[in-house]
């Protein structure tokens, strides 16, 4: 590599408008069209009048279903653990000693 300084060419993708006028022009153009579309867009994107009420019902139902399913899963796991306690589950150390056949 030569020690001479190389001329850098700007990458057009990262080029920032050097002219502050351009930024102001953009802001001005946006300000000039700020109120042009809002009302009409709101009209075509209008939500149904009963949306909130229906959503409340649906969300409550979905949350309840999910929490019941989670609780059901927990109860099954509780039942399994209870069975293990009642009917005895060999503790790891006892199991290990029976496997190795240690006489002590």
């Amino acid at each position, binding site marked *: 590599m030569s020690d001479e300084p190389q001329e850098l060419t700007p990458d057009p993708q990262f080029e920032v408008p050097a002219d502050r006028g351009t930024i102001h022009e953009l802001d001005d153009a946006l300000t000039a069209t700020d109120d*042009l579309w*809002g009302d009409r867009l709101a009209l*075509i994107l209008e939500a*149904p009048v009963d949306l909130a009420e229906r*959503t*409340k019902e649906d*969300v409550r139902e979905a949350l309840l279903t999910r929490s*019941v399913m989670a609780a059901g899963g*927990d109860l099954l796991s509780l039942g399994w653990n209870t069975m293990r306690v009642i009917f005895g589950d060999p503790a790891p150390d006892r199991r290990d000693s029976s496997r190795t056949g240690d006489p002590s």
Partner: protein
Amino acid sequence: MAVHLPMLKRLKRSRSTTSDSSDERLRALIDEHAAAVYRVALGIVRDPSLAEDVVQETMIKAWRSIESFRGESSERGWILRIAHNTAVSTLRRIRDEATDPSLIPERMTVDTETRAEQRADLAALRGALDELDELSRSILVLRDVEALPYSAIADTLGVSVPLVKTRLLRARRELQRSVEGVSNER
């Protein structure tokens, strides 16, 4: 009995979803933001029933993570970010699943009893909105309908403020061209 702790936590949580105060909080959240979430969702998915699904999913996600909301941004901005992400992933999932192009939502069907000319204008506007890319549609809805500040839109969509402004201006000009084109044809 460490094994039972998660269950107690979940039961506590499930009880809390049905307690009066949290029920009220959930209702208030939906009352306050459902319509805005719907508009953002419809702007992206372009199908009213899908937009309603997005509203429901957004509210569930927001409700579940409401404790992690630190108030660094506005609650509206926070919920609209969830809505935007949910709508985009819904649309992508449908595009992935749909082999028949007719199953992909392309048109919004909204009943508006307005005069014929207004209807034509709105139809042209709807068509022009359909022609925009997802990002431009989101920016347009978040700014022109929801009136979010540029910085909040940039934050919501994970892009820069200059990009938001440039895309917004371009989108508005596209809408202008489309609507003027329809008017000139008449």
